[in-house]
C-alpha cells in the first residue's frame, strides 16, 4: 500500500450537506453491513474446504500428531519435477525405493527389494521384490510397477531430467515374474545399490502423459506405498500425512505427520518454544543458540554431508583440450596453490564463520561417511603465513615494488575471488581468504555474485578462484566424478556447455582411480581406491577444502522421543537418506501431555474474540440509536 502526502481538504455548501443529511446514516449502515459481509465471505474463501480438512482429522483423543517446522516450501509433490530438499523428503515419506541406506552408516539395506544379487561380470542385477506389499488404494504392488517406474525415468524427457544419473548405464529393465526385477547395465557400477528412483503405481501414473507430467501437482490423494500418505495440502502453510499402519517396514508410531512451512527463522524458533511444532530443522545459528538450554527443548548440532571449498581455475579447457576462459596461469602451478592452502586458517573460519558448528576439512568425502572419508593425519597442512611466503619465494614469485609478487612470466599474482550473494557464510569466507592472500604478497579482488551467474562464469572458465560447496551423497561415485577429465566443459554447436567440473582438473592417473573404484564391488577394495583418489586431490590442492559444516536441529524432548540419527554417530535426525525418525518417534509417555497450555490459551483467545465481536455489535447498535436520535432532532 502506498503512502500519500496529506492533501488539501475541500468544502461543500451547507445546502448540499443538508441534502445529504438523511442519506448519510443509511449509507453508512449499508457500508458497514457490506464490509462485514465482505470479511465473512473472504474468510470463507480463504479457508479452502474446511469440510475436507475435518474429514481428514477425525478428532479422536488418542491421535498422535508430530509437527515438523521447516523453512523451505515443498515445490511439488510430483517426484518427476520437484527440486528442493523438502520435496525429496516428501517423496521418501510417500514412496518406496528398491534399496535403502542404513541408519547406522548408510550401508545398503533392503527396501522394496528384500534381496538382490549381481552377475559375475557385475552387469546384470536381479532384485527380489517383497511379496504382499499393497498400494495405499489396496492394489498389489508388483515388479511391473518397478519396471514401469524405471522405464519412465529412462524414456520420459521430464522424468529423465530428474533421475537420469541413476539410469545412464541401464540398458534394459524387465520383470520375469511379479516379484523379480532384472536390470542390465553397460558396465559394472556400485550405484546399482543406490537407485534413488521412487517406485510409483503404474495404475494411476499411466494416466499422466508426457506433456502433463511437467505440471502435474500430484496432490489429490496420491497413491503410494511409503510409510505415510499425503492427505491435506495447504500450500505454503502445512502438509498433512497419515501413517500407513500396514507399512512393510512396521507401522510408524505416530498417527499423523504434519510438515509446517515458516517464512522466518525467528518464527520457527518461537513455534518450537510455544509448542506449536515439535521439531525444527535448518535454522540460523543465532536462533539455534537461543534455543540451547530452553526448557523441554533438546538441540542437536548434527553432522552433515556438506563441505565448503576454495576452488581454483587449473587452466580451463574443453573435453577436447581446447583452452577456454581467462584463468590466471599461476594457478596451474601446484606450488602456488599449496602456498595459498597453507595461508588459509581453517580454525579461524570454523570459529568465526561457523561459530564452531563444524570442523576443518580435508578429504572431499565428509566424515559423516566414515567408510569412505580420508584424512591426512599428521601429514595435514597447517596454517603458517611465514611458510607460505617462503614457499612462494622458493618457487620464484618475488615481491615487486608494490609488495605484490610477480611470477617468472612477469605476471603479478592478482586474482579474482568470487563469493556467493545468497550465502553469508560465503561472503565471510572470501573476506578472510582475501586478507590472508594479501599477507603473502597476493592481491585478491572480491566479487559477490548470484549462484546462477557464478555457474555461468565457471562453465566458461572465466574465473581465478571462487568459494562454493557440495553436498555429498552416500555413494562417493558422483563426488569423485566431478574431478575427472570428462566433466570439463564441452563445445556444442559453437556454444560452451558446462560439465560438473568446476576446477578443470584433468589427470590420467586420477581418472584411472575413478574408473577402478566404479568396477570394484568389494567394499574394502573400493574403499582403498577411494581414499587414494581423495589423497591425490589433497596433495595437488585441486581444491582448498575449508570446512565440513553442521546441520542445526532442535526438538521437544519433553513431548517426543525416539529420534534416530543417521549415521548413528551424531548424524542428522530428519532429511536423511531414509525416514528413520518418522518411523520411530513417539510420545514420551502413553498419556501424551501434548495439548498442554495451548488449549487453555486458545479458549482465552476465543473468549477475547467474542468480546471484541460483541463490542463491535454494541458499537453498531449505539450508532444506530444515535442516528435515530439525530433524525428526531
Amino acid at each position: 500500500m502506498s503512502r500519500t502526502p496529506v492533501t488539501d481538504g475541500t468544502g461543500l455548501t451547507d445546502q448540499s450537506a443538508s441534502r445529504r443529511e438523511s442519506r448519510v446514516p443509511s449509507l453508512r449502515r449499508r457500508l458497514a453491513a457490506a464490509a462485514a459481509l465482505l470479511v465473512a465471505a473472504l474468510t470463507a474463501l480463504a479457508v479452502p474446504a474446511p469440510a475436507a480438512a475435518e474429514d481428514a482429522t477425525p478428532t479422536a483423543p488418542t491421535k498422535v500428531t508430530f509437527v515438523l517446522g521447516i523453512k523451505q516450501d515443498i515445490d511439488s509433490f510430483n517426484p518427476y519435477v520437484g527440486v528442493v530438499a523438502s520435496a525429496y523428503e516428501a517423496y521418501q515419506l510417500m514412496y518406496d525405493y528398491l534399496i535403502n541406506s542404513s541408519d547406522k552408516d548408510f550401508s545398503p539395506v533392503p527396501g522394496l527389494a528384500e534381496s538382490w544379487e549381481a552377475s559375475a561380470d557385475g552387469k546384470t542385477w536381479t532384485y527380489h521384490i517383497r511379496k504382499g506389499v499393497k498400494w495405499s488404494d489396496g492394489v498389489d504392488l508388483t515388479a511391473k510397477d518397478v519396471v514401469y517406474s524405471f522405464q519412465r525415468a529412462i524414456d520420459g524427457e521430464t522424468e529423465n531430467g530428474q533421475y537420469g544419473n541413476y539410469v545412464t548405464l541401464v540398458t534394459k529393465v524387465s520383470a520375469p515374474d511379479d516379484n523379480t526385477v532384472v536390470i542390465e547395465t553397460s558396465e559394472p557400477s556400485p550405484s546399482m545399490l543406490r537407485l534413488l528412483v521412487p517406485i510409483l503405481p503404474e495404475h494411476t501414473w499411466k494416466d499422466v502423459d508426457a506433456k502433463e507430467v511437467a505440471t502435474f501437482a500430484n496432490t489429490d490423494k496420491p497413491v503410494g506405498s511409503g510409510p505415510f500418505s499425503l492427505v491435506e495440502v495447504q500450500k505454503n502453510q502445512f502438509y498433512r500425512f497419515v501413517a500407513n499402519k500396514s507399512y512393510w517396514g512396521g507401522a510408524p508410531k505416530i498417527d499423523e505427520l504434519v510438515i509446517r512451512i515458516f517464512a522466518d527463522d525467528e518464527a520457527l524458533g518461537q513455534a518450537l518454544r510455544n509448542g506449536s511444532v515439535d521439531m525444527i530443522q535448518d535454522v540460523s545459528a543465532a536462533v539455534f543458540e537461543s534455543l540451547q538450554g530452553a526448557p523441554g527443548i533438546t538441540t542437536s548440532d548434527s553432522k552433515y554431508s556438506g563441505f565448503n571449498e576454495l576452488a581454483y581455475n587449473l587452466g580451463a579447457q574443453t573435453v577436447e583440450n581446447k583452452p577456454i576462459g581467462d584463468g590466471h596461469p599461476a594457478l596451474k602451478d601446484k606450488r602456488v596453490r599449496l602456498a595459498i592452502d597453507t595461508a588459509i586458517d581453517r580454525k579461524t573460519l570454523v570459529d568465526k564463520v561457523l561459530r564452531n558448528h563444524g570442523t576443518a576439512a580435508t578429504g572431499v568425502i565428509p566424515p559423516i561417511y566414515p567408510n569412505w572419508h580420508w584424512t591426512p593425519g599428521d601429514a595435514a597442512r597447517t596454517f603458517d603465513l611465514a611458510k607460505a611466503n617462503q614457499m612462494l619465494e622458493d618457487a620464484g614469485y618475488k615481491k615487486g615494488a608494490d609488495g605484490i609478487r610477480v611470477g617468472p612470466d612477469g605476471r603479478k599474482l592478482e586474482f579474482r575471488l568470487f563469493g556467493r550473494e545468497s550465502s553469508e557464510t560465503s561472503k565471510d569466507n572470501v573476506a578472510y581468504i582475501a586478507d590472508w592472500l594479501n599477507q603473502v604478497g597476493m592481491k585478491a579482488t572480491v566479487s559477490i555474485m548470484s549462484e546462477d551467474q557464478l555457474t555461468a562464469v565457471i562453465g566458461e572458465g572465466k574465473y581465478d578462484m571462487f568459494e562454493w560447496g557440495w553436498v555429498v551423497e552416500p555413494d562417493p561415485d558422483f563426488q569423485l566424478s566431478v574431478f575427472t577429465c570428462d566433466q570439463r566443459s564441452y563445445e556444442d554447436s559453437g556454444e560452451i556447455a558446462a560439465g560438473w567440473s568446476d576446477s578443470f582438473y584433468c589427470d590420467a592417473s586420477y581418472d584411472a582411480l575413478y574408473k577402478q573404484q566404479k568396477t570394484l564391488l568389494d567394499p574394502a577394495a573400493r574403499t582403498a581406491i577411494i581414499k587414494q583418489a581423495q589423497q591425490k586431490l589433497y596433495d595437488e590442492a585441486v581444491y582448498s577444502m575449508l570446512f565440513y559444516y553442521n546441520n542445526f536441529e532442535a526438538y521437544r524432548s519433553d513431548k517426543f522421543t525416539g529420534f534416530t540419527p543417521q549415521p548413528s554417530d551424531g548424524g542428522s535426525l530428519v532429511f536423511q537418506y531414509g525416514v528413520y525418525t518418522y518411523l520411530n518417534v513417539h510420545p514420551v509417555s502413553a498419556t501424551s501431555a501434548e495439548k498442554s497450555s495451548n488449549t487453555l490459551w486458545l479458549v482465552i483467545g476465543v473468549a477475547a474474540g467474542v468480546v471484541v465481536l460483541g463490542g463491535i455489535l454494541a458499537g453498531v447498535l449505539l450508532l444506530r440509536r444515535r442516528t435515530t436520535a439525530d433524525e428526531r432532532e
Partner: protein
Amino acid sequence: MTATTTATERPGPSGGGARQRRLRAITPTQVARKLLTALGTLAFVVVINFFLFRVIPGDPAKAFSPRGRNADPERLAQLRRDLGLGLPWHEQFWSYLKSLVRGNLGESWGQHRPVTAVVAGYIWPTVLLSGTALVLAAGIGMWLGSRSGWRHGTRFDKLASSSAVTLYSVPEWLLGLVLMVALSGTGLFPVEGGMVDPRSTLPGFLDVAWHMVLPCFCLSVVYIAEYSLIMRSSMLDERYADYLTTARAKGLRDETVMRRHALPNALLPFTTLFFLSMGFVVSGAITVETVFSWPGLGRLTYDALRGPDIPLLQGLFLIFSAAVIVMNLFADLLYPFIDPRVRRS
C-alpha cells in the same frame, strides 16, 4: 477556504435542479474517455512488463536446471524452443500477447504449475488480510482524525496526532517482530504466524481469524496513522467554514454539525487515499506476510524474487499493476458522484 469560493460551488439554485444534475453527473463520453485512458495505461504496463523481464541478463533456459551444471545441450535447445527464446522479439511479443488474451501467464519455474493457478491459491489470504486491515484502518482512522481535527488543540488531539506521527514512521515488519517476541510465552496469539494451525480443534474460520489478529494489527496500525492524519488535516480546513457557522446558528448539536456537515466535506481526500490503497490490497504487505508466514501474494513475491522465478514475477507485476489501474478507474468514475466540482470540470 473562503466564502466566495464556496458560494460559486453551489450545485444549483433549486433542489430539483441538483437532483437532475446528479443523475447526469458523468456523461457516457466521459466514461468512455476514462475507460480508454485506463486501457491505454494497461497496454503500456503490458509492454513494459514484457521488455523489463527480457533485458535481465542471463539465459533463462539455464536457470531451469538445478545448479545449472548438468544442462544437456539437447535439453537446453528444447527448453529454448518451448520458451520461444530463439524467435525475433516481435514474434515473442506477439505470442506473449496472444497467451495473455487467453488468460495464460506462463508456467512458474519454481512451482512447476501455471502462474494463474499459483496466484489463485495465494490471492484470497492477501485480500482477506490487507482488505480487513484497510477497512479497519479507514474506520478507526476516520474516527480519530475527524475528532482530533474538530477538537483541535485539545489533549485528545495532541495525544492522537503525536501517536499517529510516531506510528506512521514505524516499519510494519519491525512492529511484527517486536510483537512476536513480546507476546511469546503468553500464548495469547499465535506468535509463530501462519494462517491456520494444523493441530487446531477450532472451526476453520475462527482459527484463521485468530491467526490474523497480529498481522492485521501490524498493518492497520500504520494505516490508521496515515488515515487519521489525512482526516485531521482536512477537518482542520473545514472547521471554520461559513456553512458550519450556519449549521450551529440553526441550533444543531456540535456533534451533529461535525458528523453531518463537516465530515462529508472533509471526507474527499480520505476517499482518494482509500481507493488508492484499495489498488494495493492485492500486492499485500510483503514484509508483514513474510514475518508472519502468511501465505499471501506478498510472500509469494518474496519467494519468487529469491528464485528468481521470472514467469511468476512477470505475472505478479501484471496483476499488481492491473489492480491499481482498475481501482484508480473506479475512483475516477466515483468522484463526480461525491464531489460536484469534479462534475463541472
